[in-house]
């Protein structure tokens, strides 16, 4: 599914507990232009709760969450 979307930037936040993958995503989204797609790799189990919560509250689009080999990939589009 992720192959259908052109990812503009990949953030490898595996192994990040402080500040953590969500902070890396927030940083990347702040730096991105509206419409750009950011992919974040996370090995932190809390990301599956944290990242969708923030993406919804901040008004962006969670294109998908994909289980990879030992980590999860979150694909997010900046909407505003």
């Amino acid at each position, binding site marked *: 599914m992720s192959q259908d979307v052109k990812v503009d930037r990949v*953030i*490898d*936040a*595996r*192994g*990040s*507990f*402080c*500040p*953590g*993958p*969500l*902070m*890396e995503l*927030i*940083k990347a989204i*702040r*730096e991105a232009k509206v419409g750009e797609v950011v992919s974040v790799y996370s090995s*932190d189990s*809390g990301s599956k*709760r*944290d990242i969708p*919560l*923030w993406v919804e*509250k*901040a*008004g962006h689009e969670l294109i998908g969450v994909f289980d990879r080999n030992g980590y999860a990939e979150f694909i997010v589009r900046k909407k505003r």
Partner: protein
Amino acid sequence: MKKVLILGGGVGGTIVANVLARKVSPSEVNITLVDATGKHVYQPGFIYVAFGDEKPENLIRDERRLLDRRVDLIIDEATLIKPDDRKVRLKSGRILGYDYLVVATGARLCPEELPGFEAAHHFYDLDASVRLRRALDSFPGGRVVIGIGGIPYKCPPAPAESACQLDYYFTKRGSRHKIEIHYLSPLPRVFPLESVAPLVQEIMEKKDIQYTQLFNVERIEPEKRLVHSLEGESLKYDLLIIVPPHRGAKVIEDSGLGNRGGWIPTDKHTLRAKGYDDIHVVGDATDIPISKAGATAHYEAKVVAENIAADIKGSDTIRRYDGKVRCFCDAGFKKGITMVFDYENPPKPTKLSRKWYYAKMLVGKLYWSAVLKGWA
């Protein structure tokens, strides 16, 4: 004779220089450290200038006195790195060559990137910490709001720690009942480290510290005393403390070596700049997704020094950085918590204890001797 050039005399650059000077004979290596001011500042002390009893002058020492005598110190500012020529240009016009470059240029505060920042206080440099202390001393009462104006920023737990320090400060003054403390967390919890967040939330609730989660500060409206989040919320303040936006050093951006934030893309295990085997990166200057903090630079610096020493001696052995960080947070009233973690292992839940407060104080005492020399 190999030439090692270190840019930046903070915790990372100083430890690399001192460890390398001990590990490699002066007949084999020339070590030069370039620092813009020649003054070394203990940044974890800023919070105690703002909220405690620390005197600013106690946090500053001459870098020369902290460096091994075999290290040459040049007080000047690096303005351009030319990796293809293995040369660095300084502000004075001087050009320095290198065989190994260590970039330890830290983070740069960029308050101008946050609209309305002029209305806010912070404790991320010494002068601002002194100004914040004066503002607190004359604050008659009302709502003090603490937020984060950009990511990444140095020491992710520091804003939550400062909320606890505010509670301690106003309690000691006998005016806590006139103060509302409101902490704005960028995350859906009150503390960056998930396993520690429940304890910090409990501490905040006991101290009657209010909090809003998922509030990333986007702009300040000074005339209305409002702070706005990029998630669309707003909050009124009477006194505002905001962590300023950070970027990598200007020399990194001017040399085209940084990413969008001015941080150098760095291999998280070898700590070498991606694409440049002769450029090593330490501390805040990297783009590695871990804490920008002295506690990180401290461990990274030893790895970098050992790898350069091994390379000079012709060894193929490369030590890999495992992401280890150990830090302490002061929750006020002489109690604290500790956290230890690496790339593979999240921190274990911790307990609030006097022991960790005193451990933090001890690190501050040992910093100038054991830590900067690379002994601790």
